[in-house]
């Protein structure tokens, strides 16, 4: 790819749901403090791949994984590594905003509380997280309000705030804008561009324009395999493979 430090990578990753081979020998790398977009038609395995990086498949009893996922020099699937620790270091924002059924304040406070951050430090961290997600001005006077009463865009930014409050090393985003209107989408996109100054971001998206607007690197997947990866500009304007070319120019997907 380029000279940037490789923060996260998958090496020879295979995943089965029961007998279904969903990810086939996937090897990809994600450079530090950049945004990498995963694109591809529905069912190509991009969300499944994303969920491997914080071990979300641990809960699906019929999922079987082979291969390595390295966060810097550690294998995330090493038996000695705690899954809870992995998820603290690799945060995730979901397709549909899923705030806890608690107040705005408690939504961020919960992660701090269970991760044993002293209660004296928490208010400052919460304020900072809300500011980083450009939510502070909108909600600073109603932190006690239930999060479910916020707008969809606000809820998704709260979920991002909840994630950044824990200072993760990597943030995974699974189509974070798919349920949002254009204005909220723009706000979230601006936020992502700001966040990459501090975090390594992997984002699954269906939206080609979005990938071009925010991603430094792009990975194109098809039927569980990586077809092509490279700089976003190259993938969209000078793809090496016909399959990629057909997809990015909208012939299928």
């Amino acid at each position, binding site marked *: 790819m380029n000279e940037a430090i490789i923060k996260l990578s998958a090496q020879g990753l295979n995943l089965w749901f029961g007998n279904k081979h969903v990810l086939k020998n996937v090897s990809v790398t994600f450079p530090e403090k950049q945004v990498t977009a995963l694109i591809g038609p529905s069912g190509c395995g991009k969300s499944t791949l994303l969920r491997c990086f914080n071990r979300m498949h641990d809960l699906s009893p019929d999922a079987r994984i082979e291969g390595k996922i390295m966060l810097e020099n550690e294998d995330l699937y090493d038996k000695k590594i*705690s899954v*809870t*620790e992995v998820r603290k270091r690799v945060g995730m924002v979901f397709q549909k905003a899923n705030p806890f059924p608690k107040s705005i304040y408690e939504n961020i406070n919960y992660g701090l509380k*269970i991760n*044993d951050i002293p209660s004296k430090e928490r208010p400052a961290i919460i304020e900072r997280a809300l500011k980083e997600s450009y939510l502070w001005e909108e909600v600073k006077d109603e932190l006690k309000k239930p999060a479910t009463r916020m707008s969809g865009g606000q809820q998704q930014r709260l979920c991002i705030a909840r994630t950044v409050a824990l200072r993760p090393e990597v943030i995974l985003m699974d189509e974070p804008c798919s349920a949002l209107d254009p204005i909220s989408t723009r706000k979230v996109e601006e936020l992502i561009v700001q966040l990459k100054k501090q975090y390594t971001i992997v984002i699954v998206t269906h939206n080609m324009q979005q990938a071009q607007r925010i991603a430094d690197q792009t990975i194109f997947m098809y039927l569980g395999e990586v077809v092509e990866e490279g700089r976003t500009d190259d993938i969209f304007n000078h793809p090496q493979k016909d399959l990629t070319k057909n997809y990015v120019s909208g012939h299928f997907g």
Partner: protein
Amino acid sequence: MKLAARETIDSFVKAAFRTTGLLVIVILGGIFVMLLWNTIAFFAHIKPLDFITATQWNPGGNRASYGILPLMVSTGIVTLGAMMIAIPLGIGTAAFMSEYANSRLRNILKPMIEMLAAVPSVAIGFLGIVIVGPEIAKLAHQANGLNALNGAVLLAIMALPTIITVTEDALQALPVSYREASYSVGANRWQTLRKVIIPAAAPGIIAAVMLGVGRAIGETMTVLMATGNASAFPKGFFHSVRTITATIAIEMGEVPYQTTHYYALFAIAAVLFLITLLVNLAGEYFVNRYRKYQAT
């Protein structure tokens, strides 16, 4: 709390939850073993053939006789009568709720059916004595009206909520396209119901009936209070009968532990257990069948 401690708690709790799950198997197994054990003890005293073929249940007499036949026939008569009343009424009500009632009416009817299901069996048995009994007595010129018919009426009331709920579920589960297809060839609502809806929902309705039968066979207090409990061989709806459940309820309180009579009551309980198990399994089989139809 430190991460290691939290993860220890997590795996400990998981093991605890798992144990409670296993406990459920132990309980069912325990019931089964308890019945089986005491039944074996019973057959050490009495030949199985006598148990099945003898026409008398008379544990107290000089020549004690342990024939389950009269008890089974009693249970059979009462259950049959209950179903003759409850099946048409239940399907009719479910069809009305599902096909004719608007959602406001349905929202009133449903809680009322649930209320009917909530009435304790002993209260229904009491009403069998004070209301149904005297009416039957007048009708049949009998002294008190405590007979199989009375039990059947009460059991019908007890089985109705189950039958209505499950049938209505099955009717509601049918896709709208079935109805639309039928209307589009000019059938009216009634023809649609009879020719299309009910046949298509048949597995669900059979399941409803099975679960209702299971409920009726296993019911104790209503039959104990309303059927008169005569131990003679049952002769018909207007005669007193004594079901398996009522026999256990009456005699278990008085019999000394670990006598033949004591074991005999466990043996008839084992038979009851097997019958209800089979009926409920059959019900479940049909429920799964209509669920499968839905999926496709």
